[in-house]
């Protein structure tokens, strides 16, 4: 199973994005500065956005899910119970997995933004997909919830999971790293080698790689382990 982006090009005025690449099974992290086109790329991969040129080929992918940056965009019903039912889920299970302290009658839009994000992610992650596209999944989540989400995403051992994010400190286990730089998607390769090629790596990662203590992955444990080696 894979998704192939062949000379995909998006042009909007002076802004452009060029993408060539193949995403195979595993967990991929796509980074890039504000406005570089991460969300546009996610929409194109999901088939929601038609690029100016090029093709998106999804091979062997039968199920696909896109989680957008803002959870409000996903809400279609007036209560948590109805919203869960629209996903084919039991609201009690979702409330439990999202660690919410509410009942099914309340409106999803009455939750705090972090709680809404947890609710939305719980609906998304209740099922497995061949292709899971998650745009800024960590935004609005507190540090504890970010770590819990990372643990959950790290357990994805089948299908293609693509995370589009600006996150700087808390990451799941990542197999492949990509970066949008100067209007083009660059494949940085597999971790840990990819970390040394990451132009806009988070400050801590940059510091560790500059000191020759490249972490084996991006998980908090891997980063701490690399940092400990500095102090040996």
């Amino acid at each position, binding site marked *: 199973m894979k998704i192939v982006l062949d000379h995909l090009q998006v042009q*909007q*005025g*002076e802004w452009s994005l060029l993408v060539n690449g193949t995403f195979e099974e595993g967990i991929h992290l796509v*980074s*890039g*500065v*504000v*406005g570089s*086109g*991460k*969300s*546009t790329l996610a929409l194109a991969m999901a088939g929601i956005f038609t690029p100016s040129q090029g093709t998106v080929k999804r091979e062997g992918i039968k199920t696909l899910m896109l989680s957008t*940056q*803002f959870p*409000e965009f996903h809400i279609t019903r007036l209560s948590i119970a109805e919203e869960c039912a629209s996903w084919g889920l039991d609201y009690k299970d979702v409330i439990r997995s999202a660690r919410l*302290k509410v009942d099914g009658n309340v409106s999803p839009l009455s*939750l*705090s*933004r*972090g*709680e809404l*994000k*947890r609710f939305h992610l719980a609906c998304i992650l209740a099922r497995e997909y061949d292709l899971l596209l998650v745009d*800024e999944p*960590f*935004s*609005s*989540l*507190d*540090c*504890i*919830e*970010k*770590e819990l989400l990372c643990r959950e995403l790290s357990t994805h051992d089948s299908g293609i999971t693509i995370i589009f994010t*600006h996150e*700087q*400190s*808390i990451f799941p286990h990542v197999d492949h790293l990509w970066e949008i730089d100067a209007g083009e998607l660059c494949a940085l390769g597999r971790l840990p080698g990819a970390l040394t090629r990451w132009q*806009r790596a*988070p*400050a*801590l990662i940059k*510091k*560790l790689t500059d*000191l020759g203590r490249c972490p084996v992955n991006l998980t*908090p444990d891997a*980063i*701490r382990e690399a*940092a*400990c080696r*500095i*102090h040996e």
Partner: protein
Amino acid sequence: MITIHDLRYRSLAINSLSIPPGITTVIGPNGSGKTTLLRLCAGIALPDSGQVLVDGVVPRETETGWVNEFPDKNILFPRVYDECASALRFRHNPCPDTDTSVRRIAETLQISHLLTREMRAISGGEKVLVALAAALVTSPRLLVLDEYDSHLDAACCDRIELSIRNCGARYVLRCTQQMEIAALSDLLIYLEQGKVRYAGTPDEVFSSLSGTAFYPLSWRCRV
């Protein structure tokens, strides 16, 4: 000084809190009341009981700039330039003055290239930057930022941090989930279940949070 006395609003309960001029950051778990506290200080919500005063004045009579984490909620105009100019136009400022102010703030935040774009065509992070420009264009006394940084990359956060420090606002009140940014504050407040659990300098508050996920990773790694 921003003073809070016997504040009660939904699940938020703060008996006494003083916030001095400078940068104050509110952190805490989801649902702990961070956004609620910010909304009360900005005058967007009114307390059920108790009082919030900004230098002795209620928030609604204080010049306040507000940036929401979900900027779509606050967007009024379809074009970036018009959104940035909105607060000055509502005051009937002379058009040339408004134009000068908008272009100056756009240059400071490095969004001049977005001014002619449609709001719907820009990214989530860019919308936050536009919302920040719209908030700063009036040179507010109180700038309130609700998780403005969760859709921004690191370089952008660094740039914005500098702009926030130089914006001239007497008070900057913000919440974030990025503890490295929280560590740059003058006052740090940790909320839990609607109550102030810790308040003090970043060193003081984070020392109480060592061993938790809220302790900055770079401090944990000592690099």
